[in-house]
Every structure is written in C-alpha cells, then in structure tokens.
C-alpha cells in the first residue's frame, strides 16, 4: 500500500491569520500547546461545531494569555527543535465508472472505495506553549463585549 503525500503550495486566496499570530512563521496555520486536553460534554458529535473555547490576548507576544472560562493561562513562544510538518488528510472517491461524488462523509466501512492522500499544508518552526497551571479568574469575561 502506498499513501502519497503532496506539498500544497501556499494558497493566495485563503484567509490569513491575524497578524500577531502570523508572526509565528506561517500565515495560515499555527500550533498551540496546552497541558491537559479540551474536554467537551455532549453526546452529539457535531455539538461542538463552531463553539467558543476562549480568548487569546496577543497584545504582547512575549507573554500571550489565553482565557478559557474561569481559567487564565500564560504562555510563551517557543522555537521547535525540529521543524514540524503539518499533514492534512484528503479523502476522495476512487475514480470508477459508477462513482459517487460525495463520499467524503462515508463511514469507515467504505474505506476500501476511498482514496486517502495527505498534504503537507504547512511547515511550522515555532509554537505557542501554555505550559503553566491556569490561574483562576474571578469574573469570567469570555462573553464580554469587544475591548479595543
């Protein structure tokens, strides 16, 4: 079995990141490292789609902060010892006479009829690390009005 990996060239039409995080080296993708995981309650697999997690303050990129609920995390920019390639999976149907155009959502059973390919979408050299324990914040401001 061969899984091909292509390099996707930078797409000039896609959205760019806010300038503060784009300084991390790539303007379409960046990495954030956290202790622990983001846990979401809810049985529906789609229930977290588009939901707000928290807010990141990037006023000082030496000391970015991340506010999730009552928790405030302080982070820093870290150079990666080795650059990381970010691979993204592409699933598309095999070209056969009676193919179905929309099987991107097909279940794992149909893996035989799907062709999986991976793209190197970015090479990342820096990441944001929020490694410390979160500080409790008395007044949650995650739903606060924009402050500019």
């Amino acid at each position, binding site marked *: 079995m061969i899984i091909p990996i292509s*390099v996707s060239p930078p797409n000039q039409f896609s959205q760019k990141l806010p300038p503060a995080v784009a300084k991390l080296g790539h303007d379409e993708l960046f990495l954030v*490292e956290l202790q622990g995981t983001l846990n979401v309650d809810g049985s529906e697999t789609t229930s977290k789609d*588009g939901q707000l997690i928290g807010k990141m303050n990037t006023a000082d990129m030496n000391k970015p902060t991340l506010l999730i609920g009552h928790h405030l995390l302080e982070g820093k920019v870290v150079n990666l010892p080795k650059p990381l390639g970010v691979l993204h999976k592409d699933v598309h149907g095999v070209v056969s006479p009676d193919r179905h155009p929309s099987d991107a959502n097909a279940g794992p059973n149909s893996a035989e009829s799907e062709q999986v390919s991976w793209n190197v979408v970015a090479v990342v050299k820096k990441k944001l690390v929020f490694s410390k324990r979160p500080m409790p914040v008395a007044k949650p401001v995650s739903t606060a009005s924009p402050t500019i």
Partner: protein
Amino acid sequence: MTEIELRFSPSAARDTGSFRLIELPPELCQLIDSTAESKSPHPILSIKGHPTEDAVMCTADKTYSLRSVVLSNTVLVLTPSRTDPDGTVHVRDQLHEVLELVSSVPKVHKLPVLLRGMEYDEGDEDRRATLPKFSYEQARSEIQASEFEFNLGLRDRRILVLDGWLRPIASAHLSTILGLLLNYLISLGLSHEAAPVEELVSSLAEDYEIPREVSNQIISWFGVVQEGLWKMDVSALVAEIGLALLGNYKHDPILETEFMAKWKNAVGDAFESVVSLQLLSGNYLRNPNDFSGATINFFPSSSLPTEPAARFTELFLTRQRWKSDEIGPFLSDIVVGSKERDKLLLKYARAMTTPEGTWYTARVGYNN
C-alpha cells in the same frame, strides 16, 4: 486588534483526526520548501507498507522509518476563520502525538523471498506459462523503499523485469552470459570503455538465443549505457563472476590460492588484474590456516537475518569471535553509516582489545 477568539471549527467532527504532525529532518524540510515554491502538484513523499508492517516514509531516493511519539501535552492546530479572519481562529484538531522520522535502510530484503521459484534460467521460454508471477508494479507498491533504492535493489539482487514480471536471474546463467560478453569484447575487438550495445546484444541473440531484453538489462546492470555505448563497470562484472564461482563452495571451503586461480581463469587475461578478494566482501569467510594455506567459503550476508539480534546470533554461531574489519561487511546492509553500526556492535557484541586488534565476541553465550 489584540484579542483573538478561539472556536472549534464549524466542521469539528470531520476535522478530528485529519491532521498529523511530523518531525522533519533538515534535508526533508528543504525538499518541502523547494517543492512548495515550484508549485508542483506531484507527490514527493509517500508512506509505504503493508498494514501489518511498520510504516516507512520514502522520498525519491531515501527511506525513513516512521515512529509515533506520544506527547503528554495537547497540541492544537489552528487556522483562520473564513467569516472573521481578523478576530477568530478555529481549532481544527487536537493532537497527542508527533511522528518521528529516522533514516533507515531500504527494506528490499523481502524481494528474494517473494520471488522464490521465479528464477530466470536457460530454456526459460518453456517454463514461462507455468511459473508463479509477481509484477514490477506490485513489488513497487509493497516493498518499503524509495523508487531509487527499489530500482537499485532490483539491480543489486540481479532481478530482471520481463514483460512487467520480476524474475531473479539464476547466478550460474548470469555468470555464463557475463563470460560470453567478455569473450565478445575480445573477439570483436571492442573496447570495454565504449562498446556498442546493439552489436553485443545481437551477437548473444544470434549465437546463443539469449533474448534481447535479458542481455540489455544485464548490460545496464554492469556499467553505464550512453548513446548506445556501454562503459563497462569492470570490477562489478568481475565480482559477479567471482560470486557465482564462490557459490559452489558453501559447505566445503576451497583454498584461497586455488579459488583465485579459477576466478582469474574465468575472467580471462584481459581483466585478470582486477580480481581481488576485496570485491567479494560480505560474501565469504576466510580461515587462515597455517597448514595448507588460507581457505575461503561462501557466506553471503544477504542470506542472514535482517533483524540485528538474529543476525548477531547467527554471526557468533558461525564464528565465536570476529575482527572488526571482518564483521563490518556483514552489518553494512542492515544499518546506515558506520556510527549506527558501532551502536549495534556496542549493543550486541563485546569488544576485546588485544595486541593484534579489536575482537568482537557474543554478549551472551549461545553455545552453552
């Protein structure tokens, strides 16, 4: 704008599991950068292997083994939002592992096993229909090696591609053809630096009914063909003839002097000077014996296990102790570079320094 909203992506369920992080060695990083600039849509990397094997990643000419390293932290992959690119980023995936790449030897050892019973030998046409078959394309997708290394592996293992099927050539038959080639070079008065391929191939086809595709491939294994002229790789060809000769002495050793005489005789006067035991390194064992002179016997590293532990077991069962320059050739096909080789020696063997050099012995007593 200094505040950025983090949100799950609108297609979180579909995105989950669709990202991977992979550590890039510098040379791969360069390769990716240059490919991104040239905007070629061609895949430059591939992951190869049977689901039951450890996966490898191949570039056009190198093989890396893939290893997953678990992280205790979570890494979030974030991309800008389509609707609000200035103030919102989307968490596309949460990852707990990175893939590590370690450069490794191409896993072409499987080829001879897969192709057992498919040898190409004299009088092949009669047997062709009944043979088991294995195609070039099939092997290319199953063998864990880069394109370049795969083709090199076919060449080094003397495997012909006939009508798209892989056929390892029988050693004796190959040796006969090489002998004929050497004879033609002399009798037709051709230079081994630039011999017209067409003339050699036609002669072999007319006089000995050796198919053109066979002789063409054999010629390309032993040298460079450019504009119809063959620049023979003399030492490779001489080594192959020696190897075929040596193959007869697997269990009964032959006197070194006797073997060298036979070998020189087989290659003829013109190439006699090239003959040297060095050419067969990794294929023979030499036993210095004061009584009647040194003897050698056939001991090919290609028939040894590829697992380091198993290989060392076998090596130390064959001989209790090895000199470092003797054991080297039998390890070169399972490790990349001398540094890795020394690591293996450190792990599986015990070094002993004596006045006449370093000896390696087994770490464990296999014999008792």
